[in-house]
């Protein structure tokens, strides 16, 4: 559409947007090293490693992080099992209820988080259900389920059915075929779905804020202390989570490139 000059402008523009998207991350990392004296952590007051040493000094913050990890692990396992099963059914079989299933998957993705959280709270209030880690986990499975189904379904659809037929012709039973042929073949989709579920769970604020009762997760703890000032430990934890996430993503990319 554009000539050489236009290309260069667009190239620069792309980098400008990337810089803008990255700026708050740099600020987050930087203020984890801020040697702040006053309560507010908004102006730069010198470099320190102090907060890395005192990472777990605030027990309520540490507790919230532990809650987040616990919920993320349990909900990821549940979501992956339930979602992979539906993904297999939708990708492989024609059955009654297929249309309804697809509709539910789509509806759950497109419902605003706020409405999902509010409706779950309505259910728990109507049923007098005590709210806590269990209800948070239920909610997290619900909002990540569709994403696992979609990722696994895409992988199953791309799978050659003759592989499974060959296994069955060679005398493998349903379970053996699944374990030795189907599962390894769809594994990348299952893992991608599981990673997505974990990321969605550990990051969620909106839905969790409705069903948490008196339990706090990491994002809830942070939101609760916005008005009084965020301690630098939050920046440090954010930096560490960011570092681990990026490292996993890069390692994954390198590994898949080697395989190719």
């Amino acid at each position, binding site marked *: 559409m554009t000539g050489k000059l236009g290309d260069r402008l667009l190239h620069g523009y*792309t980098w400008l947007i990337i810089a803008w998207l990255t700026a708050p991350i740099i600020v987050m990392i930087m203020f984890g090293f801020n040697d702040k004296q006053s309560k507010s952590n908004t102006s730069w007051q010198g470099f320190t490693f102090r907060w890395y040493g005192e990472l777990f000094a605030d027990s309520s913050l540490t507790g919230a992080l532990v809650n987040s990890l616990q919920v993320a692990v349990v909900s990821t396992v549940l979501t992956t099992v339930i979602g992979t099963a539906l993904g297999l059914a939708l990708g492989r079989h024609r059955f009654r209820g297929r249309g309804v299933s697809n509709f539910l998957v789509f509806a759950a993705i*497109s419902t605003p988080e706020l409405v999902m959280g509010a409706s779950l709270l*309505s259910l728990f209030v109507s049923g007098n259900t005590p709210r806590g880690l269990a209800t948070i986990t239920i909610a997290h499975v619900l909002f990540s389920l569709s994403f696992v189904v979609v990722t696994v379904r895409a992988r199953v659809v791309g799978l050659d059915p003759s592989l499974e037929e060959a296994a069955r012709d060679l005398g493998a039973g349903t379970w053996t075929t699944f374990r030795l042929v189907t599962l390894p073949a769809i594994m990348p989709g299952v893992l991608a779905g599981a990673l997505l579920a974990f990321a969605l769970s550990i990051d969620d604020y909106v839905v969790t804020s409705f069903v948490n009762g008196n339990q706090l997760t990491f994002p809830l703890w942070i939101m609760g202390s916005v008005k009084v000032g965020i301690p630098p430990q939050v920046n440090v934890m954010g930096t560490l989570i960011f570092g681990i996430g990026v490292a996993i993503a890069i390692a994954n*990319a390198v590994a898949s490139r080697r395989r190719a």
Partner: protein
Amino acid sequence: MRRVRATAAPYLLALPAWIWFGVFFVVPIAAMASVSLTTGNILEGFQQTFSVSNYAAAIGQYHTQMIRSLVYGGVATVIMLLLAYPMAYWIAFKGGRRKSMYLFLLLLPFFVSFVLRTISWGFLLADDGILFGPLKSAGLLPQGFHVLATEFAVIGGLVYNFLPFMVLPIYVALERVDPRVIEAAYDLYASRWAAFRRVVLPLSLPGVFAGVLMTFVPATADPVNARVLGGTGTTMIGNIIQTEYMTNNDYPTASALSFTLMAVLLVGIFVYARSLGTENVLEAAAR
């Protein structure tokens, strides 16, 4: 025996997800509908009266915030579309072998918690923060200058947080455009602009459609940006619903508001799909 198991397989596989969706998605929406038609309060209990008075009262009291949310969500979506398209275009057509690197950089913010990202924005924009603090002490900005607690900060935060969800679908649509189709347009003496407007742009519309859906709904219903970056004059409907549920324990009003929000968004999506031509969009997406 084998045959029976084979036909039962899809139902057994789908059953757990059906139960989860049924009990924790369909039933709660119904529960919310039923709560929105009750009267009473948390101390004396709620009675099912099937009265729509909650809706009238809720909309009467909070229509300002409802309209404000739709305006903020709409403005943010338009800005995102304008920002995202050129970037998606450049990555899809000129990214070459570094395409995946650009996409990775675009997704970098997602490795930081949504809440924390928004707060870091607040850091940047703070009245005495690293951006405005030095400018103010140098006398380049008046002391009273502030961005936080204004609609600019809130809409800016929404744009920042949801922009990648606009870029990705447009990128995917553009990336699928066959370069030979564009060459054909040039062979038929189309100018660069005509080739873009009449070939590339129409082919990318499904991506634009998906991008708008993926950003407008969460941006309009978002309570985080208004709470962290906004002030008393920028309260959005998400904040009201949270307060009504969690602080005021006024479940009927909160349910009525949630339902109204969902209905407004659904109608919005429907009108938008119709005005763009659902058939065109679906047809293009299927290709």
